């Protein structure tokens, strides 16, 4: 996995995130820092060829083709609920060469396991990843 831990303490609310899977879908309440996290990853991507950030502003992008031709990338996708097609989701779900962090709430089409769906929660002024489905 390209990213197992992400930490950032320049804000009044810190980030301390642990990733356990090659595909992580992050939902949760609005305003918990998902898009801020995406912007921090975009900043990292500027100096790394291994990080690819995609959101609604990304010019037309053939994700299945990109996945087929790349490996060992960290692919971070914001606005996933409105930009990913079923074909894109299938390509992500069946890829084991790259790591994905997907910011979105609609898990249909990803065929995920419980431990792959998580939520941002602010606990003690720190954004953490909580895996709610594991405890239901």
């Amino acid at each position, binding site marked *: 996995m390209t990213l197992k831990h992400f930490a950032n303490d320049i804000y009044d609310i810190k980030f301390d995130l642990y990733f356990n899977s090659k595909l992580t879908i992050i939902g949760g309440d609005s305003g918990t820092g998902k*898009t801020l996290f995406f912007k921090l990853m975009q900043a990292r991507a500027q100096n790394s060829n291994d990080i690819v950030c995609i959101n609604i502003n990304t010019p037309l992008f053939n994700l299945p083709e990109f996945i087929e031709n790349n490996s060992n990338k960290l692919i971070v996708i914001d606005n996933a609920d409105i930009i990913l097609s079923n074909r894109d989701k299938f390509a992500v779900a069946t890829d084991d060469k790259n790591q994905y962090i997907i910011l979105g709430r*609609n898990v*249909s089409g990803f065929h995920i396991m419980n431990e792959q769906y998580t939520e941002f929660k602010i606990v003690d002024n720190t954004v953490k990843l909580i895996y709610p489905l594991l405890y239901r």
Partner: protein
Amino acid sequence: MLTIYLGEKPSNYVKANDGWFMQHLKDIDFTNKVISEILYTIDNAKYIGNYMIETRFKHNCATLVENLSTGCKTAINVYIFKNKVFESAECGKNALESIFNTGEGGIYIGYEIPKITLKQPVQLINNMQKKIIRDEDELITEIYQFFRKKRDESI
């Protein structure tokens, strides 16, 4: 009354809430009491003037309203632009609660949402069939049944 759409998208549907919000900033009065409540409830943010806010991520530091969450922007869009129907897919439960409690405008639901407490009736338009719903159990049942049927049809 809030109008909730399922199924067929109406002609006044808006998919990209961030873009709409940024394009129509001049139509939004951020000093309005309801908008202030939306900012605080969803993002714990406070408007400080000149399209700047203070958020919980950086106290005593101004940042552009552009940095509000998409859920917060959606709730503001729904409240201000009542003749449009906004996509709700990027709203967390807290943003949906704010939209349902404000009780005006229109949203489109493209996938199953969590149960939201209804403090006032809503109008549900399921594939252009209208129905007034006063109870959250009835609403969530309608939504689940709609998506279950859709899933069954796709198998």
